[in-house]
């Protein structure tokens, strides 16, 4: 049943199911991106992306410049790592990231002349990003620069971008979709970036589009961000880029749902967007690509939003990667007394953590600090099979069945009900009237099924 059509696109601007959580973006969407000064030290884990860890290529005691490569992504699905500050490499220690990864990290102490971060940010939001001279860049050069700059998806998953844009004979890319939905509640970094640095995004999009030789480039924004739409429309004038304004709905920003909404296509289960001729990337990534290709600076800084009622002054800030979260939080006035949970990322899919010394990584899109009032603390009650999770699941699954199968160690039922299709968006847990940790159970169910499959 197609109720209406998204203007100018084959999709409806919508997908089946999904939820409407309060977005709480008002906390930080009016605060302009602020720039943090160069910190005393940064900690750079060797695996900040999906894939193979990069190889450490500096020794303790060595001095590094700004932007110098310190970790080489040698494997295809890997990304290089660059120093965001000039300084001295300290010992290699271990760090536990909010997502649970426990890995070695390089610590660099600031030393010597620093490039002021404000300069980097000003460069980014300046209006003089080229739109017309894109054709001077050779597609393969763009791909190579993306690879060398260590650019990964900044939306959260941190998938190495060069993998997506490397030309592939078997899977031609028709459409490049730029994801500016930012459907996670609280987060506003993409919104601010779209508002303040629309030109950089457009430049990056054009470059990437050229790299993948896309016939069409679409920037997708939810309809609760009219200002961003306005800025982007201005910035895309006289270019091939189209802008799709989508229904505000969680998880509109998930790639499968977004492709369904805009193009009406469904990615086959276990497939990638490229299976339907689509490449997708985040707006932040596009800005970084533009910076990497045109200004030849690697991915060393990113915009994050620090929000939630547990933060004294919610802000959007431009930070060097590797800065400790503690420093970021202190920059935002620290946490309030009734703060209960600190989350890397948004409240739906982010990871809560307790170790504030953990660094901001390439994939950290924000820090959300929730108070006791915002989180649900209610005790779990039995599932009454009301089917609300079924109505909420954007993947058309039966979450309660998956969760119970996981709880009662029944991998056969779990796989029979397609547990592998779940991408843990959290809709089911959000709507569950029995307050069951459905997503967590499904997550454990996946490990269970994996163990069962290779018995």
């Amino acid at each position: 049943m197609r109720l209406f059509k998204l203007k100018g696109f084959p999709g409806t601007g919508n997908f089946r199911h999904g939820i409407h959580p309060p977005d709480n973006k008002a906390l930080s969407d009016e605060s302009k991106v602020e720039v943090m000064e160069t910190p005393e030290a940064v900690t750079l884990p060797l695996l900040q992306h999906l894939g193979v860890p990069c190889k450490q290529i500096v020794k303790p005691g060595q001095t590094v410049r700004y932007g110098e490569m310190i970790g080489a992504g040698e494997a295809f699905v890997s990304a290089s790592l660059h120093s965001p500050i000039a300084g001295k490499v300290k010992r290699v220690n271990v760090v536990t990231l909010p997502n649970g990864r426990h890995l070695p990290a390089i610590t660099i102490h600031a030393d010597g002349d620093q490039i002021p971060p404000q300069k980097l940010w000003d460069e980014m939001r300046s209006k003089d990003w080229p739109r017309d001279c894109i054709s001077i860049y050779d597609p393969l050069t763009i791909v190579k620069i993306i690879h060398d700059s260590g650019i990964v998806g900044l939306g959260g998953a941190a998938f190495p971008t060069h993998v997506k844009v490397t030309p592939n004979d078997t899977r031609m890319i028709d459409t490049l979709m730029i994801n500016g939905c930012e459907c996670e509640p609280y987060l506003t970094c993409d919104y601010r970036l779209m508002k303040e640095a629309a030109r950089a995004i457009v430049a990056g999009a054009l470059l990437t589009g050229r790299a993948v030789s896309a016939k069409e480039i679409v920037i997708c924004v939810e309809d609760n961000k009219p200002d961003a739409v306005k800025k982007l429309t201005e910035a895309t004038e006289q270019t091939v880029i189209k802008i799709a304004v989508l229904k505000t709905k969680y998880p509109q920003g998930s790639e499968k749902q977004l492709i369904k909404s805009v193009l009406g296509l469904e990615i086959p289960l276990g497939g990638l967007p490229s299976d339907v001729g689509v490449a997708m990337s985040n707006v932040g990534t596009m800005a970084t690509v533009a910076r990497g290709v045109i200004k030849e600076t690697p991915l060393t800084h990113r915009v994050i939003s620090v929000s939630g009622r547990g933060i004294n002054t919610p802000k959007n800030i431009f930070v060097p990667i590797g800065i400790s979260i503690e420093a970021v939080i202190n920059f935002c006035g620290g946490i309030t007394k009734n703060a209960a949970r600190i989350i890397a990322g948004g409240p739906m899919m982010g990871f809560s953590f307790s170790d504030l010394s953990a660094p901001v990584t390439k994939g950290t899109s924000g820090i959300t600090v929730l108070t006791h009032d915002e989180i649900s603390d209610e005790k779990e009650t039995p599932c009454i099979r009301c089917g609300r999770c079924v109505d909420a699941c954007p993947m058309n699954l039966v979450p309660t069945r998956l969760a119970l199968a996981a709880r009662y160690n029944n991998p056969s039922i779990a796989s029979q009900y397609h547990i592998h299709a779940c991408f843990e968006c959290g809709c089911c847990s959000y709507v569950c009237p029995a307050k069951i940790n459905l997503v967590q159970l499904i997550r454990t169910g996946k490990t269970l099924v994996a163990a069962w499959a290779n018995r």
Partner: protein
Amino acid sequence: MILVTLFIAAGTMLVMAVILSYILGWANKKFKVEVDSKIESVLEILPGVNCGGCGYLGCSDYAVAIVTDNVPVNKCTVGGEPCAVSVAGIMGVEVGEMIPIRAIVHCGANANDRLQSTPYRGEKRCNAAHLVAGVQGCTFGCLGFGDCVRSCNYDAIHIVAGLAVVDYKHCVGCGACSKVCPRKIISLKGFPEEMIPTVACSNRDKAKDAKAVCTKACVACKACSKISDIFIITDNLSACDYDAYSAQNHEDALKSMEKCPTNCIHFIGKPK
């Protein structure tokens, strides 16, 4: 008339019996399927608890493997030696040396020894908590939610002060606990003696990082390996070479245990 009835009744039955038994006999030969009777007799001896401790899908799978693939007969940890001897009798092979296999938990930190633990709200199960960062500082140690306890069919593992502890009186070495442990800190090892030494730690971080999260962590100080060569240090972690351990080097092992600065060498097993 009575006689005739008797006669006809007997006759009917006879005719029927002849026909049916002929058909069945014929079918028995015609449709004979060769089944190795050994499999069935081996299966009869195996305990039939299908625990999977032998590494096969269940007792019947192991029975097939014994008969067809000449797999060693001493893999059943539940049935133990008597079982292996009987199976060996059927197969006509030698029983390998049966060292009882038992589970060992490679973590020795009680809840109080763990630093940087954070209150955790979620499913109270190890495999769920394992996927959440910071439930406890140490990313290697026992989570203490008892997935292993639930998996044990022999009531042989319990959570004591937040730590999984094997009850060697009951443990049969089926390996169910080691399979479910998300942190893989439970391993199965042969116990040549009733009590053997073990290093109760799995933390492979450097001493400084390990110490930051646990008071009982192995700091790889080499104190143990200097005294006794059954302890080998790899990846910042001391490990006991169980095969090398015997009654002869018992004294050395005891000394190592006393020397260990973080008390993470333990003697475990069935107390005499």
